[in-house]
């Protein structure tokens, strides 16, 4: 089953924003990393995720290239496959949504 609930090809932007924000806040609370604190950055990245959710049916990282091939794009569903490595190396994931905890 899709890990983030029902697939959402027909979400409105407002619905997608709500879901994307819920998704990242949940991972920020339960995962090993902290969510970006700057509200402007958070708002922009949530909108980027939501845009991809509406366009592609998945909350794809707004910083990564979308191929249109589901078997490839599944690796860039937020939190993406590379985020652990990126955070270990750079202190934050590529888009800056999740950061190394204190």
């Amino acid at each position, binding site marked *: 089953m899709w890990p983030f609930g029902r697939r959402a090809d027909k979400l409105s932007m407002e619905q997608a924003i709500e879901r994307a924000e819920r998704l990242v806040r949940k991972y920020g609370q339960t995962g090993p990393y902290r969510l970006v604190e700057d509200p402007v950055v958070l708002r922009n990245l949530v*909108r*980027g995720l939501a845009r991809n959710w509406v366009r592609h049916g998945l909350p794809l990282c707004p*910083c990564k290239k979308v191929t249109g091939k589901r078997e490839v794009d599944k690796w860039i569903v937020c939190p993406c496959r590379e985020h652990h*490595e990126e955070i270990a190396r750079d202190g934050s994931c590529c888009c*800056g949504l999740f950061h190394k905890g204190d």
Partner: protein
Amino acid sequence: MAIEIGQKAPQFELPGVDDKTHSLAQVKGPQGTIVVFSCNHCPYVVMYEERMVKLHRDYAPRGITMVAINANDTEAYPADNLENMKLRAASRGFEFPYLIDESQESARLYGATRTPEVFLLDESGTVVYHGRIDDNAEDAGAVERHDLREALEQLLAGSPIAVPDTTPIGCGIKWRLGGCGSGCATKGCADRKCNSEK
């Protein structure tokens, strides 16, 4: 961590899409300079390119020049190599120098981590603003806070910059293996110098 507000901006001498080498001393404007770390492929840069062009058009006549620097690893991201930078600059109508920082040294010296990430320098080359261009990457028409423009106006008016530091919105700079200099020895990272420093 980005260079602190109030510090002198590091010098650079980098090749550009015009096949000429440009230094900070050459590109700096009489009233100030916008140094923006950028690239070709980052979706956030793409969203901001038109605004960057407009910023240059609006402020160059007022004595503030712009220079864009691409520090991404061009081996891992060929879309960001110099040939593609030339195409990009031509297609988007860049009227400012677009330089490549292949060694990533300038990005490290500035402490830049994202694209686009802006450093605004005053006429003496001191950093007076760092961070984002504005608060809405996706929709230029819905911007509520024009962070860089506000800093530019304050600089030109001789006033202190009210909000000198903001968090940039954009993708991380693509460091070469070990190029970040963190010495983290990330799995798969083959940079010998980096790993040998541990």
